[in-house]
């Protein structure tokens, strides 16, 4: 981006603001649907009642290589974990992760299961946690709005890192 101008921190403030606004309203979401939450994610992204596209989010990239944001929705099992890590590594920077539902957050109702990974944050860094089992589609939209706010106030020189936020 800009031959290292963004990373060096020498870009004018107003240009950075413009860049951030345009980034926040053209988020390409890769849908990583795993379990029950995948259907609620489908409702948030596909149902006319919720309709995520009015927020400037495009939920249909062909591959993770075109995506800015990945929504991990559902139970992450130990068998699935390496695949998730691999696809996250294929996404171009800056990339964001929303962990949707109790299972992806911490294991959820399978907290004592032998085959479930207790939280996707053990594998990849998470930006937004959306709690619920499963969360309502509105909760996922709230998470996306919070993420957009965060992108708008970002300083690209700091390499897009920050503390994770939990949707209340």
């Amino acid at each position, binding site marked *: 981006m800009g031959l290292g101008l963004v990373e060096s921190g020498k870009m004018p403030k107003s240009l950075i603001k413009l860049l951030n606004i345009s980034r926040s309203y053209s988020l390409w979401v890769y849908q990583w649907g795993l379990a029950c939450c995948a259907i609620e994610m*489908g409702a948030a992204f596909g149902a006319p009642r919720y309709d995520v596209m009015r927020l400037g989010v495009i939920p249909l990239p062909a591959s993770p290589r075109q995506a800015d944001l990945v929504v991990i929705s559902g*139970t992450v099992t130990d068998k699935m974990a390496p*695949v998730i890590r691999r696809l996250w590594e294929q996404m171009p920077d800056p990339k964001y992760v929303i962990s949707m539902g109790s299972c992806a957050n911490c294991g959820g*109702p*399978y907290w004592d*299961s032998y085959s479930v990974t207790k939280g996707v944050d053990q594998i990849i860094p998470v930006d937004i946690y959306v709690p619920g*089992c499963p969360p309502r589609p509105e909760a996922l939209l709230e998470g996306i709005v919070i993420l957009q706010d965060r992108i708008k106030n970002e300083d690209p020189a700091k390499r897009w890192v920050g503390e994770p936020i939990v949707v209340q």
Partner: protein
Amino acid sequence: MTSVTDRQKLQYIAAQAADARVNVELETEGMTLNLGPQHPATHGTLRIIAQLDGEQVVHAEPVAGYMHRGYEKLTEVRTYPQITTLVNRIDWLGSFANEVPFILAAEQLMEVEAPERAMWIRTILFELSRISNLILFLGDMGVQLGAVTPVFFAFRDREFVLDQIEAATGGRFHPNFDRIGGLKDDLPKGWLESTKGSMDKVREFCDQIEDLLLGSEIFQARTRGIGIVPADVAMQYGLSGANARASGIDWDIRRDNCIGLAYPELDWKVWKHTDGDSFARFWVRIQEVREAAKMVDQLCDGLPAGPVMAKVPRIIKVPAGEAYVATENPLGEMGYYIVSEGELTPFRVKIRSASFSNMSITPWLLRGVYVPDIITILGSLYFILGDIDR
């Protein structure tokens, strides 16, 4: 110099030679195609490794287990009321239907019977979860064929059914409403009328899907005669539910072996189709949604009065014994085999889920089909990964 006719003659010979060469040289190569583990056609995470010869599948092997959560082990350390919360999430589209056979099996062991009103409300919610499950299938089948519009209709009209489930139980997805001996609560005021209103929307949706998909020439070309399961093969692989009925097997647990639900008192029909192809499976399910809407209307009209909870002890200890109860879930036969030793938790629970058997036919069914038809066949078999892997 050659004349025009000569040139035509030469061209004709050249074309013939080219055709002949193609016929000789058109060799196919083997290739391994990996589908999944993340693929929209599988409603979750099924992986299929297909050995191809040209564009035809020689051998397809499903790899399950990406969604294995260890249900049968977890049930051994949960009390009976806690297990209801857990089994909700096996088939996540028809959650309430998963609770019912487990509760019925536990009731059989405890020798408790739910009051009649609870039985009827259970049946209503059972059918509502069937509708919410199958509506998504009807829309999703379009997506497998490249038609994106039907799934938007499906999500739109599914919300009306989910609203009703939420109003009665408090949960859009996982109601956790069934208790041993009855239900958690009675229905809210005005619920029956609004449910009947939403059934009208469901019937409208079925008509719309029939217009959009069923009559479409492309849809028929892609589904008719593709993925045919003969009745005897379906029996051998243990197919159940709409998949078996689409192969001409006249078998429905709701009619033939109904335990603890109000189906014998209703006027309804078991639909079947003799073709056994992808089209038949779609057709049977669209009729099932209509039947379910009809049943909900009848149930709302004839709902008996009375309590919704029988007398059960505060701390539930199930006496020692074994019980197996199966019901006709949206995906097929789902049963729980409970072994109890008189403790707070069951000794062992074996879950017979429909999708596992329905999926196990894929190596047989996918042999010899073309690559684009893999998706159609998988979509029309309609399994849910939580139901396969548990």
